[in-house]
């Protein structure tokens, strides 16, 4: 059964230097507050996994938490580049960043394979793309039809971190709207932390919503606004202006560092 903890306790108990950590959220319910707590606790040498590393991963990379990034699309959605990610890849600042690059289809299948306790994912893909020469993919022949398919190693993060709208007091989690790969991340990971907008006495399942039983989760932390500047369906909208501002904040190393000090490092943990 999930333990109800503070965010500070949750990150301290579950994440260690050198871990492989997936903080997921596909455009919705992105666990920004948890990412900030990882930064405040100055964790480093992390292998970070995410399909769409965006602003929070730009911050984690820019302060030097990451050794390696496993991803499929690294940009500022609707705005452009991630400048801290680019600086790390192009100039090794603040540290070189090893990349393992996949496609969305590949990453999604790798999480699903991890959740299924399989060693690898199989899909029809990674053809006609130069990615195949630079990433972990092998060809496998279907024993029934002879079709040649792509095999990718399953994602098995040490820690999976996601944000959701609600949990009950037993740590059962409910999220709704665009559900991304959150359930797969929790089930694929050795340990998991879910931050939620609120803890309620009784969950009211929404149509199309996803429930993750508390006994599959290690810790739940109540962090209202924990997805900002992304959004939490039914709670608050995406702060589109911030994503545009990030373009300017992140362009310059000093501006970025000053912003991080003021807004994250010296900010009071939730």
């Amino acid at each position, binding site marked *: 059964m999930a333990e109800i903890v503070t965010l500070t306790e949750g990150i301290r108990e579950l994440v260690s230097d050198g871990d492989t950590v997936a903080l997921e959220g*596909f*455009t*919705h319910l992105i666990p920004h507050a948890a990412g900030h707590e990882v930064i405040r606790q100055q964790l480093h040498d992390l292998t970070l996994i995410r*399909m*769409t590393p965006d602003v929070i991963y730009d911050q984690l990379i820019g302060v030097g938490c990451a050794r390696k990034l496993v*991803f*499929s*699309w*690294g*940009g500022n*959605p*609707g705005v452009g*580049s*991630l400048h801290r*990610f*680019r600086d790390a*890849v*192009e100039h090794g600042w603040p540290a070189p960043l090893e990349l393992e*690059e996949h*496609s*969305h*289809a*590949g990453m*999604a*299948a790798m*999480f*699903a394979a991890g959740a299924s306790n399989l060693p690898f994912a199989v*899909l*029809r*893909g*990674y*053809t*006609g*793309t*130069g*990615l195949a020469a*630079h990433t972990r993919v092998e060809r496998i022949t279907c024993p029934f039809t002879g079709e040649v398919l792509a095999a990718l190693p399953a994602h098995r993060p040490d820690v999976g971190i996601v944000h959701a709208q609600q949990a009950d007091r037993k740590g059962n989690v409910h999220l709704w*709207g*665009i*559900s*991304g*790969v959150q*359930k*797969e991340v929790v089930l694929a990971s050795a340990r998991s932390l879910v931050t939620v907008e609120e803890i309620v006495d009784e969950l009211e399942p929404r149509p*199309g919503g*996803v429930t993750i039983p508390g006994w599959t989760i290690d810790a739940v932390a109540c962090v209202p606004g924990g997805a900002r500047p992304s*959004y939490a*369906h039914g709670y608050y*909208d*995406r702060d*589109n202006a911030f994503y545009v501002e990030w373009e300017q904040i992140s362009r310059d190393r000093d501006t970025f560092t000053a912003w991080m000090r003021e807004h994250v490092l010296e900010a009071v943990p939730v």
Partner: protein
Amino acid sequence: MSAAYSADEMMAVEASRRLTNDSVCFVGIGLPSLAANLARRTHAPGCTLVYESGTIGAKPEQLPLSIGDGELAETADAVVSVPEMFAYWLQGGRIGVGFLGAAQIDRHGNLNSTVIGDYGSPEVRLPGGGGAPEIATSVRDVFVMLRHSSRAFVERLDFRTSSGERVRLVVTDLGILEPRDDELTLTRVHPGSTVDDVRAATGWDLKVAARVEETEPPTADELAALRALETKGRA
């Protein structure tokens, strides 16, 4: 005398005309989303919009700013997880048209959205392919939308992110390219552009169709519908 319109508006209108009531299209943010939503508001109200965030049959009133906008989920026929989207729907062969953009394209429609320079030590690290590698090999028809310049239309890609084998249409701000004998060929120019303009903005020796037609400029109705979408998107 038709109303004044921008190059982006011409691109969105021309792409929208290629969608039909039966089209099921995988849509990204930006011009493809504008084009697909315009089609749904004009000649193809039955066109099905699928966003890779997991919304199938989204019917947004406003132009979404991100593929994960809440309104897409609220107006969709179905909302599915991301693994399901790529496995059952894209790989499952349910999507007819896939829109792609890129930083570079070659004469075979292969696209680069990964790096400028060498992969291991790039001059410019681009966001990467995202869904593109499997969109390019799983949908029936790939439509590319890309502004014309000799930096984008290159003899040799720095990196091949996705295959051009299913590219059926390239809509640029100057005209339309379609594959003829496995090579992208100029088939139309937009009003105000010439074949020489397109040649000058293409980094390879561009094949030109025997008869190059002029694109029909946006109609008043198309422009009105387009601007209504854009205005709502900004509100």
